[in-house]
């Protein structure tokens, strides 16, 4: 851990803007800036991470680090910033971690196979209940930031995988490959070295998109059902 003093911070700045100011001050002093992940800076891309004062994405709720404002802190506070820590998220440098384990889980089954020859049925022609559409959309809001893994005392990825399994399992297009999807994605999740979920619910609270634990329960049902059908 290294202590830095940062000045000229406005309460209206986002946390990442504070990091920008810190890095500018470090560069001006001839020191190495702190490496951190960022991209869209509007809570969509899932790139920014950081474990701030003991919580993923900091003390605010329903926001990513880029949406966290400095008004959440007091002037003169010492803020502890750490990378997301998990065996499956190796640290690349400073606050940057490698979350490609999530990509590999997605590649294992987080998709639907569509024939694009031109005869594909219009998805809107298939009736879907409002409930299923809403639930699938809620699951699909997962941005794969990894806050669930970072917050879980077991570094479990089940909220992420539960959301990705659910967003397809709830829709007719996703049902076709549902058995293989859940089995392959869970197998890849286990292979990556994530821990086991013990239902503490920390992931749901810290998730910037409010992904519900119901998605884990649905994945568990899907997984059992897939093994019975197989």
């Amino acid at each position, binding site marked *: 851990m290294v202590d830095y003093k940062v000045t000229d911070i406005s309460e209206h700045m986002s946390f990442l803007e504070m990091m920008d100011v810190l890095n500018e001050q470090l560069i001006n002093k001839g020191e190495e800036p702190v490496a951190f992940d960022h991209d869209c800076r509007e809570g969509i891309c899932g790139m920014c991470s950081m474990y701030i004062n003991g919580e993923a994405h900091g003390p605010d709720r329903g926001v990513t680090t880029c949406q966290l404002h400095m008004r959440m802190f007091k002037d003169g506070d010492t803020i502890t910033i750490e990378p997301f820590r998990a065996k499956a998220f190796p640290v690349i440098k400073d606050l940057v971690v490698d979350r490609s384990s999530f990509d590999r889980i997605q590649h294992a089954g987080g998709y639907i196979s569509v024939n694009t020859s031109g005869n594909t049925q219009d998805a809107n022609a298939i009736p879907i209940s409002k409930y299923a559409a809403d639930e699938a959309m809620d699951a699909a809001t997962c941005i794969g930031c990894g806050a669930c893994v970072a917050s879980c005392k077991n570094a479990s990825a089940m909220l992420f995988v539960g959301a990705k399994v659910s967003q397809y399992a709830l829709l007719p297009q996703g049902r076709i490959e549902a058995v293989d999807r859940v089995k392959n994605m869970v197998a890849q999740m286990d292979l990556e*070295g994530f821990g086991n979920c013990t239902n503490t619910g920390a992931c749901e609270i810290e998730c910037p998109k409010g992904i519900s634990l119901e998605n884990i329960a649905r994945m568990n049902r899907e*997984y059992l059902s897939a093994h019975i059908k197989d």
Partner: protein
Amino acid sequence: MSGFFKSSIGRKYAMALSAFFLMIFLLQHFAINFLSVFSPEAFNETSHFMGTFWAVQYLLQPVLIFGVIYHFVMGFILEARNRGARVSKYAKNNGGANSSWMSRNMIYSGLAILAFLVLHFIDFWIPEINTKYIQGDMTGLLADGEGYRYYEELTHKFVSPLRVGAYVVAFIFLSLHLMHGFSSAFQSVGATSMRKKKLQTFGKAYAIIIPLGFIIIALYHHFNH
């Protein structure tokens, strides 16, 4: 079902199923013990039935022992694996901001229950097995032959304030374990969110009433002996 119980989710199901079995066992154990507060005769009769009925002794008892051992061993295996999933610990972690103490410390409440079970087995189970299967006395009668021995043995154990204190502390840990464990088991087998709210309320009631009932039984016999 090949490979199901080797997966992370399969193990969740296995932990939950063994937990369901243990929670049902706890309920019947409590119901029988509670009889001792109201009617020593009914407690004696029920204890003798449970202690000598073949299906309980040779079918349910081995299943129970397997269930207890499985729940503990799998709990330790999962804990070790989970600790390995985060090799480098956080310098600052505010767990209380997003989860209950009970949910984060199931291993410690579980270890306290395991320590209690060792004492409980030494107190009741080992002497029971010795009397019935080593000495071969299946009558369930007192040494002088005047009535059943079960109620006498029970009340005798709760004379010592140290033992009663240990039992009370153990039941507090049991309550803490159940406080998270009850609803967690249902979540693990995929209970839907609509049912979960009712289950959480019922689970909290179960987690308080059953251990509190056991505490009342221990204190009742301690102060009425």
